[in-house]
C-alpha cells in the first residue's frame, strides 16, 4: 500500500504502459492464440466479381491429408443469418441479404464460397485447391453512374435497382435562389478513390467451444468486442450470454476492424458444427478482397459566393460506392460526412444529397475519418478554386468566411452546434511556423524563372465531429444503437485500482491515458492503476472504439466513475475519521478533516478498510467501487490548420513534400506524447491517399492492386518530417475538455497535399489532379495544358 499522492497526471507526456509487452514480443495477437485440438479454417473465395454458383463439391477436399471438415455455403446456411447493417439511413433503403458465405450467387471477387478446416494451416490451404466450383458468369457492375441507369445489370437482382438509398439534407435558403444572386459560382467534380485500410495486423478469429454448456469464446482482432457479441448472437442464434468475445492485442484498425465480418460468424458456426476450436487468419492478399474498403465516392460540389469572397451557399451531390453488400455501418459513412461539408464556414444555404450505389466490389465501410475526410477534401479543394477565381490568397478567403472565435457556440448551416473553436489562433500559429510569406516569395521567384521544379503551397483548415455520439442524434439518423460508453472502477483491497472501460484500443494507448485520468481524480499514483478492456466477461458493457470517441466519451466516463468512487469513499472516510462529510476535504488522494490536518486517510487506506469493514454503520455499503454510463450531450469538434509545401518536378511528375506544418486544436490534452503520435499516424494515412494509395479494379471487377506489392502503403522514405503543434481550446461539453484526435491528421492532410500540388501547377492551367497524384498523373496534367 502506498499513500504517495500524485498530482497533475493529465497533461503529462508519459511513455506508455502498453509498450513493455509490445517491444519484447510478449504479445497476445489473436493469431498467437493456440489451444489443444485447434483446427485451421481456410476459405475458398470467388475468383469472379459476379457469377451464379451452379455447383460446389467439397468432397474431394475431405480426401486431403489433415482435413477434418469442409463445407459449402449451402451446407452452412441453416442456422446462419444475414450479416447485419445497423445503419439503415432512410426508411426506404434497399437492404439486401448478406449471407456470411455465398449460397447461389457471388457478388464480388473474394466473396466466400466454401471452406475447409484442417489440422494445420498448410493442409487447410492445400485442400482449398481440391474443392470444385462451377460458376455461370454475370456482368460486373463497376461504374457508379452507369449502375443507376435503368438497363444496368443488377448486383441484387431481387431488388430491381442498384440504388441503395437517396439521403438529402437541405437547410437555409434555397440553393437555386442563392446561385441566382451570387456573383461567382464554382463547380467541380472530385473523386475519392477506394482505399484499403491496411491495419498491420491481418484480421484473425479463434473460436473455442465448450459443448457441455453451449458456451463459446470468440477471440477476434476487432475494434468492437461488445457490438460483435450482440451481433454474433443475432447472426448465429447462439444466446448472447453463452458468447464471450475477447479482443486481445489488436494491431491497428482504422475502421477496418469496426465490423461484423462473415469470417467471425463462419468460425463460430463451424466450431458449433464440429465441436472443435477453430482459427482463421487472413493473409494480406485475402484481406484485400475480404476486409472492407474505405472511401469510394464521386462528389459534385458547387459553391456560390460574392466577389468579396463571402460564401453564400454550398451544393453537394454525392455518389457513394457501397460495394456488393451493406456491412455494419456502410450506408451511414457518407451521412457522417454530410454534416461536415460546411466545415468552419458561415453560409446561407446548404443543399446536400447522397446516393448510395451497389457495385460488384468489396463492400465499403468506415476508414479513418469515415465520411469526414471526404467532406473536408471537397470543401477545402473548392475553397482553393474559389480563391483562384477571385484572385484571393487561399488563407485570406478562409479568414473571410470562418466562424469567429467570439461567435461560439455556433450552430452550423448543417445543424451542428460547435461548442468552442478558435480558427484564427490555430491558423496564425501554423502560418508562423510554416514561414508562409517566405515560401510564397520563393514560389513566385521559381515561377518567374520558369523553374522545372515548381513550389506549391497547400492550406487545409478543418473541423470534424468526434465523440460519437449523443444517442438522440443517432436515433434521428436511424442508427440502430446508442452512443453511450461505460466505465467502472474497482478499488482493490490493497489500494490498487482497476479501471474497466467499454472502449477497446488497438494502438491508441488507452491504458496509459485512462490511468492518467483515474490517477488524477482519485489522487493515486499512475503506476497503481491498471486498465481492463476488450473482454466481454471482464468489461461487460461498452460501445467500443471508433470515430475518435474513446477519450471523449469513454475517458469522460472514467472521470465520472472516479468521481463517484471519491463520493463513496467520502462517506466511509467520514465514519473512519469520525467527522461529518461536510467537514472533509479531499486533495491529492487524501481525505482530511478541515482544521485537523493530522486526521487523515488516503483513499487507498479507505479501500483496505472498506474491504475489512468491521464496523461500518448500518446501511453504508461496504464498497467504494463505482460505475458510470455516459451518454454524451454533444459531439466534440476538434479543428486545425495544416500547411503543406511541395516541390513538383514538372519533367518527371514527381512530388516531394518539402515541409508539413499542422496546428491541431484537440482541446485539453491528456497525454501530449500519444496525441503527437496519433497526429503523425493520421498524417501518414491522409498523405497516402493524396499521393500513393488506390484500390484498382479492372473492367471485369478483379482487384488489380490485390497485394502489398501492388498497393503502395508508404514506407519511411516516402514521408517527410512533420512539424506538429497545438492550440488548446477546451471542449465545454465534457468534464475533461477533450475533443478527440484519432482522425484529425487524416482528415486535414489529404486536401493540404493536393491543394499544394495544384497550386504548384496553376501556372500550367491545371486545376485538379485525380488522387492518388502519381507522377504519371501529374506529368500528364502538366503536358495536357499550356503554360499560361
Amino acid at each position: 500500500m502506498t499513500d504517495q499522492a500524485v498530482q497533475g497526471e493529465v497533461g503529462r507526456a508519459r511513455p506508455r504502459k502498453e509498450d513493455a509487452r509490445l517491444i519484447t514480443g510478449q504479445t497476445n495477437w489473436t493469431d498467437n492464440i493456440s489451444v489443444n485440438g485447434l483446427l485451421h479454417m481456410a476459405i475458398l473465395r470467388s475468383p469472379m466479381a459476379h457469377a451464379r454458383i451452379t455447383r460446389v463439391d467439397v468432397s474431394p477436399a475431405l480426401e486431403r491429408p489433415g482435413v477434418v471438415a469442409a463445407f459449402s455455403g449451402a451446407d452452412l446456411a441453416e442456422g446462419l443469418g444475414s450479416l447485419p447493417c445497423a445503419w439503415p439511413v432512410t426508411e426506404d433503403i434497399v437492404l439486401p441479404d448478406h449471407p456470411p458465405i455465398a449460397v447461389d450467387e457471388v457478388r464480388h471477387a473474394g466473396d466466400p464460397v466454401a471452406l475447409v478446416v484442417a489440422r494445420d494451416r498448410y493442409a487447410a490451404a492445400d485442400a482449398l485447391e481440391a474443392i470444385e466450383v462451377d460458376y455461370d458468369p454475370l456482368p460486373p457492375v463497376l461504374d457508379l453512374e452507369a449502375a443507376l441507369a435503368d438497363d444496368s445489370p443488377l448486383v441484387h437482382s431481387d431488388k430491381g435497382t442498384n440504388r441503395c438509398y437517396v439521403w438529402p439534407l437541405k437547410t437555409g435558403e434555397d440553393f437555386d435562389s442563392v446561385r441566382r444572386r451570387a456573383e461567382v459560382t464554382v463547380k467541380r467534380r472530385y473523386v475519392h478513390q477506394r482505399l484499403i485500410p491496411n491495419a498491420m495486423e491481418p484480421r484473425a478469429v479463434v473460436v473455442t467451444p465448450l459443448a457441455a454448456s453451449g458456451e463459446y469464446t470468440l477471440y477476434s482482432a476487432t475494434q468492437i468486442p461488445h457490438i460483435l457479441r450482440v451481433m454474433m448472437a443475432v447472426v448465429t442464434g447462439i444466446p448472447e450470454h453463452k458468447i464471450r468475445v475477447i479482443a486481445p492485442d489488436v494491431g491497428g484498425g482504422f475502421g477496418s476492424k469496426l465490423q461484423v465480418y462473415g469470417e467471425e460468424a463462419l468460425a463460430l458456426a463451424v466450431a458449433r458444427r464440429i465441436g472443435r476450436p477453430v482459427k482463421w487468419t487472413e493473409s494480406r492478399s485475402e484481406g484485400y478482397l475480404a476486409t472492407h474498403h474505405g472511401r469510394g465516392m464521386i462528389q459534385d460540389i458547387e459553391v456560390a459566393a460574392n466577389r468579396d469572397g463571402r460564401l453564400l451557399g454550398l451544393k453537394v451531390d454525392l455518389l457513394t460506392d457501397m460495394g456488393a453488400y451493406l456491412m455494419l455501418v456502410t450506408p451511414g459513412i457518407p451521412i457522417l460526412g454530410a454534416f461536415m461539408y460546411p466545415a468552419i464556414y458561415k453560409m446561407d444555404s446548404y443543399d446536400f444529397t447522397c446516393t448510395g450505389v451497389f457495385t460488384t466490389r468489396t463492400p465499403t465501410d468506415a476508414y479513418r475519418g469515415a465520411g469526414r475526410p471526404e467532406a473536408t477534401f471537397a470543401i477545402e479543394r473548392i475553397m482553393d478554386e474559389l480563391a483562384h477565381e477571385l484572385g484571393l490568397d487561399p488563407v485570406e478567403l478562409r479568414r473571410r468566411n470562418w466562424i469567429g472565435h467570439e461567435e461560439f457556440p455556433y450552430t452550423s448551416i448543417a445543424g451542428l452546434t460547435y461548442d468552442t473553436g478558435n480558427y484564427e489562433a490555430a491558423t496564425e500559429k501554423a502560418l508562423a511556423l510554416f514561414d508562409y510569406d517566405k515560401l510564397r516569395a520563393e514560389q513566385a521567384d521559381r515561377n518567374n524563372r520558369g523553374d522545372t521544379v515548381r513550389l506549391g503551397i497547400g492550406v487545409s483548415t478543418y473541423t470534424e465531429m468526434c465523440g460519437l455520439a449523443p444517442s438522440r442524434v443517432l436515433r434521428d439518423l436511424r442508427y440502430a444503437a446508442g452512443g453511450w460508453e461505460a466505465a467502472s472502477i474497482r478499488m482493490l483491497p490493497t489500494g490498487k485500482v482497476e479501471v474497466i472501460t467499454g472502449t477497446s484500443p488497438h494502438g491508441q494507448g488507452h491504458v496509459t491515458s485512462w490511468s492518467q485520468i483515474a490517477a488524477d481524480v482519485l489522487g493515486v499514483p499512475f503506476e497503481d492503476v491498471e486498465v481492463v478492456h476488450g473482454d466481454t466477461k471482464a468489461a461487460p458493457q461498452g460501445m467500443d472504439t471508433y470515430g475518435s470517441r474513446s477519450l471523449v466519451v469513454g475517458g469522460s466516463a472514467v472521470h465520472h466513475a472516479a468521481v463517484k468512487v471519491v463520493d463513496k469513499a467520502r462517506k466511509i472516510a467520514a465514519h473512519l475519521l469520525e467527522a461529518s462529510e461536510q467537514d472533509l476535504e479531499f486533495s491529492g488522494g487524501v481525505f482530511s478533516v478541515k482544521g485537523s490536518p493530522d486526521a487523515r486517510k488516503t483513499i487507498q487506506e479507505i479501500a483496505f478498510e472498506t474491504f475489512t469493514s468491521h464496523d461500518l454503520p448500518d446501511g453504508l455499503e461496504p464498497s467504494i467501487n463505482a460505475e458510470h454510463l455516459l451518454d454524451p450531450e454533444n459531439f466534440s469538434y476538434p479543428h486545425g490548420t495544416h500547411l503543406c509545401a511541395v516541390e513538383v518536378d514538372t519533367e518527371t511528375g514527381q512530388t516531394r513534400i518539402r515541409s508539413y506544418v499542422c496546428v491541431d486544436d484537440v482541446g485539453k490534452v491528456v497525454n501530449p506524447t500519444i496525441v503527437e503520435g496519433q497526429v503523425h499516424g493520421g498524417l501518414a494515412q491522409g498523405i497516402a491517399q493524396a499521393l500513393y494509395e488506390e484500390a484498382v479494379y479492372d473492367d471485369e471487377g478483379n482487384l488489380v492492386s490485390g497485394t502489398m506489392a501492388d498497393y503502395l502503403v508508404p514506407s519511411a522514405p516516402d514521408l517527410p518530417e512533420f512539424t506538429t503543434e497545438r492550440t488548446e481550446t477546451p471542449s465545454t461539453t465534457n468534464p475533461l475538455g477533450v475533443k478527440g484526435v484519432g482522425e484529425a491528421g487524416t482528415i486535414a492532410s489529404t486536401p493540404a497535399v493536393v491543394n499544394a500540388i495544384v497550386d504548384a501547377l496553376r501556372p500550367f492551367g491545371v486545376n485538379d489532379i485525380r488522387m492518388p497524384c502519381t507522377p504519371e498523373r501529374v506529368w500528364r496534367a502538366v503536358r495536357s495544358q499550356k503554360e499560361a
Partner: protein
Amino acid sequence: MTHISVKVDGTTYEDDVEPRLLLVHYLRDRLGLTGTPIGCDTSNCGACTIELDGVSVKSCSVLAVQADGSEVTTVEGLARDGELTALQRAFHEKHALQCGYCTPGMLMAARDLLREHPHPTADEIRHALEGNLCRCTGYQNIVRAVQAVSEEEVPA
C-alpha cells in the same frame, strides 16, 4: 520431412520439418515463439524480420530448412534478464510504436542498420527501414528512436 537443428534466442532446437515450412511459421507454430508476427504474404511489410546468423531477414522469405545449423535471434531474444536493449528503451521513450505489430520487425531491422552504420542520418534511417511498413507512427518517432541510440553510442 527434413531434420534441422536451429539455435533460437540461445536455445537449440532439433526438429523434423516439411521442406516447404517457412521459418516464420516454424518459429510461431512449432516453437511457440509468437513475438514475431506476420503482416503480409508478399514479403513487403517486414513485420516478421528476425536475425539469421547476425543479419536481418524477413522470416517469411526463408524456409525453416535453410535455417538448419544457423543461429536465429527474435525480438524475444533481445532483452536479457529483463534488461531491455538500448533500442527497445528508445522505442518506448520516443513513442516509436502505437499498435506495436510492426515493432519486432522494426527493432530487428534497426539493429542491423546500427551495426553497419552506428551513426546514420535521418535519411539513412528512413532508407534502411524502407522494407518495414508501419501504419501507425508516420515513421517520425521510429527515426527519432534509432537516432537516439546512435547518439548514445550504446549497442542496439
